[in-house]
Structures are given as structure tokens and as C-alpha cells.
């Protein structure tokens, strides 16, 4: 299969590879996919008090399109408010990377990873708020 130039670029020069401290309150972690299915993405965000994604990091086990999708996702959500990041859809990723039909699931996974990281962050925040309330 031929890859688009953008997939190749993200694959060869992935943006924002790495990890954030999972236990940090300002960090949300999304881990989606399954090894048995051939792709796993972990996407992490660090959110400021104003609700802006200051940092985004990923690590991905998967094909070139999966790596490129997660790399692009981190690039796009960085500097955005979490509500804006939440609105990002897989079709935008698929379109930007010119993914062929058999690779659409890679972009779906990237969208899931963003949503799951945001959800994790919100859960943490809510748990903390509850705890603070008790004190």
C-alpha cells in the first residue's frame, strides 16, 4: 500500500512522542485499542487551570497510519481548550492524512484516545473537587 506524504512525514518525524506523569492531577491519560487488534494508542494531555491543553504526548503501537494519526492528533489539540479538542472528529484526521478506507479505524482510534484522555482528566478533577469539598 502506498502511504500519503503526510503519513510518511508524521511517521518519520513524529511530533510529541513521550509520556507525562500519569499521577499528576493536571494530566489526563487515554489508553485505547488492544494489542491483539494490532494497535494501541496512549495519548496524554496536561491541562492548565484555564482548561487549555498545554502539552500533549503520545506513544503508539501500530502501523504507520496509526502512528501518524496519533502524532497529528497531539499536534492539533495542543494549545486548544478541552472543549475544542473534544470536537475534533476522526474524519478530519482521516482527511488530512488521506487515509484509505482500510485505515480509517486508525483515525477513529485517535479520536477515541483524545476523548478518553479528556474524560480521565475530568474524572480526576471531579474526584479532587469532591475530596476538597469534604475537607
Amino acid at each position: 500500500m502506498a502511504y500519503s506524504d503526510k503519513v510518511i512525514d508524521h511517521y518519520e518525524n513524529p511530533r510529541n512522542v513521550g509520556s507525562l506523569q500519569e499521577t499528576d492531577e493536571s494530566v489526563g491519560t487515554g489508553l485505547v485499542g488492544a494489542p491483539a487488534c494490532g494497535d494501541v494508542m496512549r495519548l496524554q494531555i496536561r491541562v492548565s487551570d484555564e482548561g487549555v491543553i498545554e502539552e500533549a504526548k503520545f506513544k503508539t503501537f501500530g502501523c504507520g497510519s496509526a502512528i501518524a494519526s496519533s502524532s497529528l492528533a497531539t499536534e492539533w489539540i495542543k494549545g486548544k481548550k478541552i472543549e475544542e479538542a473534544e470536537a475534533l472528529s476522526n474524519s478530519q484526521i482521516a482527511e488530512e492524512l488521506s487515509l484509505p478506507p482500510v485505515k480509517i479505524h486508525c483515525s477513529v482510534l485517535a479520536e477515541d484516545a483524545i476523548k478518553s484522555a479528556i474524560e480521565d482528566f475530568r474524572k480526576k478533577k471531579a474526584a479532587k473537587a469532591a475530596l476538597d469539598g469534604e475537607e
Partner: protein
Amino acid sequence: MTLELPIYMDNNATTQMDPRVLDAMLPYFTKVYGNAASRTHRYGWEAEAAVEDAREVLAQFLGAESGKEIVFTSGATESNNLALKGAAEYYKSKGNHIITTVIEHKAVLDSCKRLEKEGFEVTYLPVDPQGRVNPEDVRAAITDKTILVSVMLANNEVGTIQPIKEIGKITREKGVLFHVDAVQGVGKTPFNVQEMNVDLASVTAHKIYGPKGVGLLYVRRKRPRVRLAAQMDGGGHERGNRSGTLNVSSIVGFARAAEIMMAEGAEENIRLISLRERLHRSISERLEEVVLNGHPEHRLSGNLNLSFSFVEGEGLMMAIKDVAVSSGSACTSASLEPSYVLRSMGLDDELAHSSIRFGLGRFNTEEEVDFVADLMVDKVQRLRDMSPLFEMYKSGIDLKSIEWAGH
């Protein structure tokens, strides 16, 4: 010597034609171009003589008694179809049961599926974790309805060589026909239809440095005489077994390829085993968690199938785009299912997704092997640095303990 890129290491898929084969073929395009079935002129006679010579060479290659036992086809897909469907149709009054294995080539498995739809019963024997069939399983599966057993000589993905001689003893003793898909193994591991009691055998030229689109089916003529129902109707060529004008130039090339194998194969296989071991050693000395798929000893000379844990196969192939290999990863197949061969051997899907098949052949060099080993080590490390699974493994998390969502 400078290294030329790209490097071809996918010799289980197909091989480069040997230039000596091309030389042998060339006159048959523009000079001796007659139809081997033309009986009325020299063009036909010369073409026929070339085909008959090729038959004898190929019979010798397989240890067959006579060239009359060779039926030329368009390749092993057709040979496998003809063997299974042809025997099933011809012998259906004797029984309706066929035995094969779960790791056969699709040309065998899908022929069996079609026969099942037509009322035949098929037993698909399992293999052990190294991909071997137990001959005693074959014995146990034979019933008084069994007409045919079909087992491959060597597997195309993992290179495991099957105990053909042992199985042939059993089928002969039980009076059941034995078909062998010998495509991957012939010339690379001992194969002899007489010594191994094989009744039908499929071979293709393009895996032994010959041209694509030509193959043969060996059909035993004595003790027992095997009969087939033709699957291609027409002019009654190949003793009624396979109609169609013979592909003379390719048949000549096929025989030349076999001749070269007979002369040089033994030495070549020693060289390929040493290259294979060099590649394996060089990679596994420098990378942890690399799993060998298939059998360590009963293995095709040029085949090395490795799973690089925590790295996905297609992603890895993209990183080594100057090296032609293949992967058992789902991403490389239209079905999005990982290799059924690796699965049947009990390999985790995750490791199947991480598998790479290196197929070394006649034209690979030691320099190429060293280059590929270095490249693999470098790229696997790079991708592991990007892999969440590797990070988890390194921090002592058991990946099996995690509840993955899947999709």
C-alpha cells in the same frame, strides 16, 4: 562490494529468475515457437521435444518414475485445485472424506471448503506450536470413507517442514491417496515421491528461480495408478488431465530451474542456512523479546520468521522500506485478521501482529544480511521507544492483566 538498495528478502513469496533460466527460455519465444500439440510440422515437433525433455528432467527432480507422471499447469494454485477437486470427483464413489491441515496454503484450504459445500467431509488437522503435524493424528483421522490426505512439504510463512515420509508410510499402509503441496520445500529439503510414497505433488517454477505462471502436478501412474477428473475442459492435453496449449518457453525454463537446483541446491542450502542463522543471531543478540516462529531445525533453509514484541509488523516494514519482507500482521491483509498460520500454531494475536518473515534466497549476500540485521535493530529500538506496550513491559506491567477495549 557496495550494497544496492532495495534488498529483496521475500523469497518465500517469489524468486528472481536465474539468468541461466532466461537464457534457456529465449529461443522458445521467437525461434521454436510452435504449438507442442501440432503434429503436422517441425515447429510443433520441436516444441513437443522440448516439453518432453522438460518432463523427464522434472520427473527426475521429484524422484518420479517417468515423465508421463508430470501434468503441466499454470502454477501450484491450479495444481492444488486439480489434485483435490480432481481426486475428489474421480473417487467420490469410494468415499467422501478428505484430511488436510489447518496451515495449508489457501489454494488447498479453499478447494476443501468448496468440496465441503458439495457434500465432502474434511478434517483439518491441528499443528503443534512449531507448526508440525503429528503423523499419528493423520492415522487416527483416517476412516473407511477417506480418499485423500493433503499435507504440505513446507509452510510458506514459517518454513516448518512436515514429516512427509512418516505420513506417506501411513497413507500407503491404509490405501489412501497422499497429495503433497511441495511448492516451498522442493529443492530446499529432501523430497522424493517414491521414497516418501507420495501420489500427487504440486510444484511451481517461480519459487525455484524459474518463471511465474507455470507449475506441475505429479500424478502417480503405478502402485497405485492415480486417476483424476479434469477440471479444465478442452483439447484434452496432458493425457486428458489438463487442457490448454502448453506454455513451452516457461516449461523449458521450469526444467532448467530444476536442473540448476539438482546441481547446486545442496550447497546453496548450506549457504542459506548459514545466512539465516547469521541474521537470526545478529538480531537476537542485540534485541530482547524477539520470538522465533516455526521450528528451529525442521525449517526451510532460507526462512526466518521473527516476532518483534511490542512493535507492529506493518509499522516496522514501513521503517525498513528499502528491504522487501512480509508480515503476518493484520494490517497487511485485506481481512484485518492476523495470519491464520501463526494463529493455528497458538501464537498470541499480538505476536502475530509483530511478525516479520525474511525469505533468503540464491541472490542474497552476507553484506545484505548484515545490513538488514543492523537496520532491524535500529528501527525496532526506535519503534519500541514510541510503543506504549514496551514502556509498560519495561515498568513491569503484565500486558495480559490489562482489560483492553478492543475494536
